[in-house]
């Protein structure tokens, strides 16, 4: 490129510093999970894997993971259907109010989680008279997951254009046949990437969750949060945190394989 050597040097140095800033705290958590000390002690007096086996046996953490996976799966399924429908409508039709609708779709993530959380909790409690629980949690998660699927789907549709669908229709296929045989297969990887992001977003969500899950349901973030300040649980929390950092490499690797960078970037949130 045509930036001067000096500019490139400065950019490289700053990039290195930002990368350090990004990775040092996470490395610390991973390191700390092998700390022999029960409390966070720096530098670690010794290293052990005993907390990893203790965490493996932790029933609380295991149950919380199951709940988180269930919620994320159902929320993602709902978001996949609704997000894809909205993307098809907004990309393939021009109509009055289209901009307002696209604003409406991003609203659940553009507004702070605390607002989404309390608005939905309030609606469930005072308007519908539903107890907070699994149902309200899934509905809330699906609400902010729609946009991730929508973003991925619409980015792909924009790139595809409509030529193949027109050809399909010209050859006599109907609306549904064309969708199943042409549109859906072409969107598949983008939808998978969107679903992955949506799953991760739901799995990680804590703010909306604290408002809409009620007392009885413990997702993994809730479990971590409740044990964060309990001294005797500290080593197990450390291990769960470290495991989550290591596991986070899987979805990023998958989504990189599934979609081009522009789509995963567009749908980062």
């Amino acid at each position, binding site marked *: 490129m045509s930036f001067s050597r000096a500019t490139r040097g400065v950019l490289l140095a700053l990039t290195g510093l*930002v990368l350090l800033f990004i990775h040092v705290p996470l490395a610390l958590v991973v390191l700390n999970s092998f700390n022999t000390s029960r409390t966070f002690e720096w530098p670690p007096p010794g290293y052990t894997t005993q907390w990893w086996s203790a965490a493996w046996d932790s029933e609380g953490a295991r149950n919380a993971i199951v709940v988180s996976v269930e919620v994320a799966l159902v929320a993602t399924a709902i978001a996949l259907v609704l997000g894809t429908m909205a993307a098809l409508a907004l990309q393939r039709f021009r109509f009055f109010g289209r901009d307002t609708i696209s604003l409406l779709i991003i609203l659940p993530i553009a507004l702070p989680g605390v607002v989404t959380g309390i608005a939905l909790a309030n609606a469930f409690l005072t308007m519908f008279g539903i107890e907070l629980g699994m149902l309200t949690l899934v509905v809330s998660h699906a*609400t902010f997951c729609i946009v991730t699927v929508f973003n991925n789907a619409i980015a792909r549709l924009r790139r595809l254009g409509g030529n193949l669908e027109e050809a399909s229709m010209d050859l006599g296929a109907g609306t549904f046949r064309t969708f199943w045989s042409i549109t859906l297969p072409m969107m598949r990887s983008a939808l998978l990437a969107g679903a992955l992001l949506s799953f991760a977003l739901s799995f990680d969500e804590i703010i909306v969750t604290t408002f809409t899950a009620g007392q009885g349901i413990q997702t993994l973030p809730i479990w971590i949060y409740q044990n964060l300040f309990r001294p005797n649980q500290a080593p197990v929390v450390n291990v769960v945190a470290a495991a989550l950092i290591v596991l986070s490499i899987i979805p990023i690797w998958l989504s990189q394989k599934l979609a081009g960078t522009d789509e995963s970037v567009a749908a980062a949130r």
Partner: protein
Amino acid sequence: MTSQPLPGGGAASPRWGLLHRRPRLRLGLLLGPPMLWLGVLYLGSLAALFITSLWTVDAFGGNIERVWNLDNYRDLFTIDVYRTITIRTLLIAVTVTVIDALLAFPIALYMAKVASPRLQRALVIAVLTPLWASYLVKAYAWRGMFASGGPLDDLGLSPGYGLTATVVTLSYLWLPYMILPMYAGLERLPDSLIEASADLGATTRTTMRRVVLPVLLPAAVAGSIFTFSLTLGDYIAVEIVGGANQMLGNVVYDSFLTGNNLPFAAAVATIPVVTMLVYLGAVRRTGALDSL
């Protein structure tokens, strides 16, 4: 509503002919379910929240009294502690957004315009990985960094738990949301434009100002929507590293759960809503919303 199908069209199969001939019907069927969910459930909830904020709770039972009044808003504006918390939250949100924009710019520019394709891919992964790491894990990581006797304390650099720690932690949490749109924006900027600028005799500085900046600005605004909004609503990071400080989210959460005062919590929650709606309205023209 005027709707217009894809240009072209063609012979419809007899079975689905109706859908094919009626693009408006198709549009309606496609838009119906998502609009029911977002338009009715979500917007309805927001409206209900606003209505609830105009009610009060009786002093004893904690039951909601459906009597219209502005008491909650009056408390919000006249009681010092809430004003302080509102101003603190807004200041933290602005500071976090500025810090993230400053940190994101060099790395986004390096990734998009200097790094080789291979390094570029590696850097995207290096930046994205922490995005996928759990929110709580990241906040927890900074609790360890700032702990007394922790690594920063060891170097004599730890400010301890408090506002500085909160700003650092929140900047850390939302940084990828600023890097990614900036990177995406800069990647779409053709290299040839930068080269042409240099060929025409522009200095690096002029190129930055006249070529890079116009691309960067909408991207930064898109990123700022997240950094700003996520900070406005946060209450967990400040619990973990913020010491005794509180943000608006804490007030909402405490009034909702501990205080059992849903109407007041609703009134507090309208502050970030109004702030974000004003902000979204202001940035709508920059085209930032299309690059989300």
